[in-house]
């Protein structure tokens, strides 16, 4: 097995010009991902990252796996269909907190119900990075921004509580500053059969002066002896606010979207290899001949 994360570094000319700000947490997440892929023994051509729009969503360009940089908020439905069309692929949907919780909020909710076997990674910097610092659904109460000069008064979105409330299949939170632990969580999320949601706290050094590296270290703690199969306990932990618990909150094993689909009941072949069942069409037409 190749244990060198370098195989996940793209050599394409366009991927050399990384648009993230120096010191941004996105770099750390990229290192975590590469390490997790390597430790899972994955090859670049076995993994697909579908991203939305935002700084976080630029990941496919800076990592050497298949990628599709799509639309703001739409990574999840696209990733769902990629996995459903070819279950042999390891599929990751990636985006920021604005991408996944605001514009894509409805898709997240329904993906939890649908439970495709994909991993959803949310780069949660509690701000809109790419559009230069407006409040996101997870921006903290009272924080002032150029577009919320009076300070945010909307209740921050709690993705963990939402996911547990909806009986999501796998729910975790980490802070990208903790490399080893984050690698383990991402590995578990990818290996988990079903929808895995990982909220990854990361600083935006350019626009979020409140939630810094130090802030995250001081306002988070790792859950010890937490039983992720206990939903009530998971929910209690999910609504804790300060310090924020880190780790796997909840695991719920249930059938995946692909497993339940009639497409794969008997035949596991990816859809791209299949041919139309002409005989079946003829049979239906024949019924329409007779009655």
């Amino acid at each position, binding site marked *: 097995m190749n244990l060198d994360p370098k195989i996940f570094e*793209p050599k*394409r*000319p*366009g*991927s050399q010009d990384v*648009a993230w700000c120096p010191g941004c947490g996105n770099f750390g997440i990229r290192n975590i991902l590469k390490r997790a892929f390597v430790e899972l023994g994955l*090859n*670049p*051509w076995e993994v*697909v990252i*579908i991203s939305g729009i935002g700084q976080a969503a630029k990941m*496919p*360009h800076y990592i050497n796996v*298949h*990628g*599709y*940089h*799509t*639309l703001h908020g*739409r990574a999840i*439905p*696209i*990733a*769902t*269909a*990629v996995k*459903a*069309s*070819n279950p042999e*692929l390891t599929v990751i949907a990636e985006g920021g907190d604005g991408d996944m919780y605001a514009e894509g909020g*409805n*898709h997240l*909710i*329904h993906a939890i119900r*649908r439970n495709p076997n994909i991993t959803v990674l949310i780069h949660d910097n509690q701000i809109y990075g790419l559009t230069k610092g407006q409040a996101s659904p997870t921006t903290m109460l009272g924080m002032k921004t150029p577009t919320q000069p009076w300070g945010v008064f909307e209740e921050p979105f709690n993705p963990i509580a939402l996911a547990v409330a909806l009986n999501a299949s796998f729910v975790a939170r980490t802070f990208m500053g903790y490399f080893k632990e984050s690698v383990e969580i991402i590995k578990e999320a990818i290996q988990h059969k079903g929808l895995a949601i990982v909220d990854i706290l990361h600083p935006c050094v350019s626009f979020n002066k409140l939630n810094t590296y130090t802030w995250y270290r001081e306002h988070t703690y790792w859950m010890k002896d937490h039983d992720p199969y206990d939903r009530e306990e998971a929910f209690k932990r999910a609504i804790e606010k300060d310090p924020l618990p880190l780790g796997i909150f909840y695991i719920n094993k249930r059938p995946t*979207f692909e497993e339940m*689909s*009639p*497409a*794969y*009941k*008997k*035949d596991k072949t*990816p*859809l*791209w*290899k*299949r*041919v*139309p*069942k002409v005989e*079946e*069409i*003829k049979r*239906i*037409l024949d019924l*329409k*001949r*007779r*009655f």
Partner: protein
Amino acid sequence: MPKFIKDVSIVLGGAAGQGIQTVEETLTRVLKLSGYNVYANKEYMSRVRGGVNTTEIRVSSEKVRAFVRRIDILIPFKRGVLPWVEKRISKNTVVLGEKENVEEEFLENVTFIEVPLSKISKEVGSSLYLNTVAAGVIAGLFHADIKVLEEYLRKRFGGKGEEIVEKNIEAAIRGYTLGRKLCEEKKVEIEVSKDESVKDDILLSGTEAIALGALAGGMNFLSFYPMSPSTGVAVFLAQHAEDFEIIVEQVEDEISAINMALGAWFAGARAMVTTSGGGFALMTEAISLAGMAENPVVVHLAQRPGPATGLPTRTMQGDLNLALHAGHGEFPRIILAPGTIEEAFYLTAEAFNLADKYQVPVIIMTDEYLVDTYYNIPDIEFDRIKVEKYVVEAEEDYKRYKLTEDGISPRAIPGYGKGIVVANGNEHDEYGDITEDEELSRIMQEKRAIRKLETIKKSAKLPKLIGDENARYLVIGWGSTFHVIREALEQLNIDDIAFLHFSWVYPLREDIREMFDGRVIIDIESNVTGQFAQLLKRELGVEVDYKILKYDGRPFSVEEICNALKGVLK
């Protein structure tokens, strides 16, 4: 004594939930199996109970495929039906049924024949058998094959137990006997000839043709959010998902539906969404993504009148401009609009090859009229359908957006080959990585909006010309109006007029322009502003001389087109 020769238009009318659909299904199938050509189309209100819904069934010596306004035989299942169809009836209309279902003021204006449908059904056991009695009467008028009728009822009600089956058969036979008696007593005379070969025809609806055509074209993924009149396609495919081993998913909204379809194609599946105008409006952002990322996708857009929620259960060709302009930025697309049920099948199958080959959105435009119409067709020719796959293996250093002469970059998919595939909705370089380079931005815009479009144009299909190519008058139409215009022209039987029908709506080939030269052009469309005429002007500089437009939510009838054309020609 009314006499109907060659072609009879029967209309059944009743409240939603009263079961006219059962009569319609029974009759069309039984009459077809008795050797008659049949055509049926319904019109219904956007409500689950009550109101007035009607179904027109044409029974004919020849293959009729178009809506007529005239009603020869009317069966009202409730009061309110005659006022609803007032403009379609005359002294020649035979109303079969009970006095209580006919408003007094109409008794004078039609030929009323009292048929005690309720009384008979009650005698059989319950008023529930009313439908079957009525179906029996009509079957009797046509001397349909009674064995076929019995067999059909056995199949249809088989699941409900032997008693129900027997009662229905009894109801049907009593109705049938009565129908024959009406003929013998010469209360109604019908002369429609049977044709043995019709018995082997396939009775297919527009909805079924779209769904089956998609399957024939290799569709294996359908994502949708329900919206009339497009939902039928999803219902049909969901019910056959297991047999075809395909994915059919009802998703949270149209935005998700189209994005899923894009994802499925990205991974090599052949995906479709089925929707109507309001749903398509929500999909436009992703149509634009398909344009930029050169992601194939097939959309079935079943039109109904808008704007907004408009008339949910009625018909119109009002969304052409939406389909033409959906999405921001400039990129090509293909718009198809089948004119017939057969074409709905073949074109839908073909749409998947086109999407795969050119990596653009392919929009199949139907409307409520087409999806809800059905008639008997001789056969489907499967050798006309070829599933052409254009996916290539990803090799090392694969470039998703490789610049080529014709603007088409070979499309690889993740999972086939060891190269890396990067697709992108942002402007990109050949590899798919983001670029803001001046030169490259320009080249990529041209690749999509000019070179690719030119390549598609070259292979675009020509419209179908019916009649003399040198005729002075040229009628043009697109989509579902094919048969109604064709039949109207047949009736008018004027030498100097030809019909040009477009089922490949966009992009149009340049050489089509010649077909219009020196002719008087009459545009027929079911919308307010003549959207197709605008397209002809914009693309080819063709000016139409007359427009015949209809936009009351109802389909064009043969009579209306005849009258309108007479007005233009005189």
